[in-house]
């Protein structure tokens, strides 16, 4: 035992003096993790070592470092470019349906343990939802049928949560313990203050709405800083983050792109009517079953209607502010 103690004291001193070889440094880290007392012993030794020179312990902001790594990686260069039906992700209906990540005021209730939990902790909203105050004082309101996971080490060096569904958090910024929520593939980190979160990552879009404070949304490729009353949007399928203006622009730029492939005319008309101002109707319900394969890219409505009519051998009637496609039922 005594020999072991001496060995550890020597190891700690060597390590702090910058003399430890890789396997010795690893041995020390393993020893620290074996027991909380070991960790305390280490911390006091480290403090004493720096204290005699009026220095501070080494502190590491791993989250900031990881962002630097991502910047250096410029993952975008390697990202595979997939043809994506942009419109699919940005119909007005879907935008309206996305849920919101809200950021409002809150108070840090306590700074507790330094260790954090050693395993993941799962919380489930069940049928009625769940309200809970976590060890670090963070208040969580988890919506029904939603779940979240406090990743191992939560409230240690950082507070990391994975969210599926919808939840509300009240947290306060603590630079020493970054609070990060992962929802639908985007990471959301508080930068300057308390915040409250609701997220619905299984939708096509994750929306972040800051009502107070500063929050950063980031992925490997994008970072967006949001302040009070700003909204940010993440589209998992595109792995892109948009601010409100860019999203509107994207919707406008891309809302009139259609790829129809053996699609029924009924479905085609429905999609076109959702975007173009002049309603299109069919003179004969049997026409709904006609199938068409065609692409439109930001075409004027009259062109779209004419192309459909020509392809299917129909006539177009334009009266009283609407288009009517006339003809017999298509051959099966």
């Amino acid at each position, binding site marked *: 035992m005594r020999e072991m103690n001496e060995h550890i004291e020597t190891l700690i*001193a060597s390590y702090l*003096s910058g003399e430890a070889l890789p396997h010795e440094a690893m041995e020390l880290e393993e020893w620290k993790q074996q027991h909380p007392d070991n960790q305390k012993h280490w911390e006091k030794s480290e403090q*004493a070592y720096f204290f*005699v020179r009026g*220095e501070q312990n*080494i502190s590491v902001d791993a989250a900031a470092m990881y962002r630097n790594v991502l910047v250096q990686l410029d993952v975008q260069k390697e990202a595979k470019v997939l043809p994506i039906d942009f419109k699919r992700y940005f119909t007005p209906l879907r935008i309206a349906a996305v849920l919101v990540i809200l950021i409002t005021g809150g108070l840090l209730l306590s700074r507790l343990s330094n260790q954090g939990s050693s395993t993941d902790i799962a919380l489930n909203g069940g049928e009625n939802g769940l309200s809970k105050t976590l060890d670090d004082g963070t208040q969580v309101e988890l919506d029904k049928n939603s779940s979240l996971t406090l990743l191992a080490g939560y409230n240690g060096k*950082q507070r990391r949560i994975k969210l599926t569904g919808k939840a509300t958090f009240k947290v306060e910024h603590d630079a020493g313990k970054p609070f990060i929520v992962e929802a639908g593939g985007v990471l959301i980190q508080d930068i300057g203050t308390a915040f409250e979160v609701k997220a619905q990552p299984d939708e096509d879009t994750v929306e972040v709405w800051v009502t107070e404070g500063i929050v950063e949304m980031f992925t490997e490729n994008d970072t967006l800083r949001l302040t009070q009353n700003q909204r940010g949007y993440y589209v998992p399928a595109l792995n892109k983050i948009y601010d409100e203006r860019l999203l509107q622009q994207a919707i406008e730029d891309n809302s009139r792109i259609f790829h129809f492939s053996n699609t029924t005319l009924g479905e085609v008309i429905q999609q076109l009517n959702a975007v173009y101002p002049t309603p299109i109707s069919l003179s004969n319900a049997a026409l709904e079953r006609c199938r068409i394969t065609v692409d439109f890219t930001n075409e004027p409505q009259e062109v779209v209607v004419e192309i459909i009519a020509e392809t299917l051998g129909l006539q177009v009637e334009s009266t009283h502010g609407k288009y009517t496609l006339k003809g017999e039922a298509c051959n099966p």
Partner: protein
Amino acid sequence: MQVSETDIVQQIKAGDIRSFEQLFHAYCEELVRYATTILKDADEAQDVVQHLFVTLWTKRDTLQVNSSLKSYLYRSVYNSSLNRIKQVTTQQKHEDYLGYVAHSYGSAASAVLESKEVQSAIDTAIAALPDQCRLIFTMSRFEGKKYQQIADELQLSVKTIENQMGKALKHMREQLQTYLPSCIIFLLLGQ
């Protein structure tokens, strides 16, 4: 669920950025701490670790981990740190530990030292060390000398220097125990 190191390597090789991120967060802090002890410079240490992970990702296709992943990371940090020290042509930066300390650490820390009571406690603790132990501790901690240098100068073995440094640090920790928490609170308030 524990994922094995082999799985993590395979996942990273397959381009799984989430596994890469997990690996980063699992080891970042201890690697920076280790690099800082060698380089005596927290910024340089962070650079070394960031660079290691950037390289690991960009060259993941050819990643060869023969022993454990952890050993690989530690050895990489160690080698890169030593290379950086070699690159500093004058070595002044590394050897002039005093200059680094003044630069790297905040005024709050210095303010603690300005407290006469604290300084006197440190002086007393150092003075209470046995002669040889005190000399070795001072040469290492205040003159920034490497164990080998001290061993050469005092004509002792490196093993002896290691042991004496261990004893000295244990002594300092015990003697200064009552001051350490106040130091931490002070530093927090001062930030």
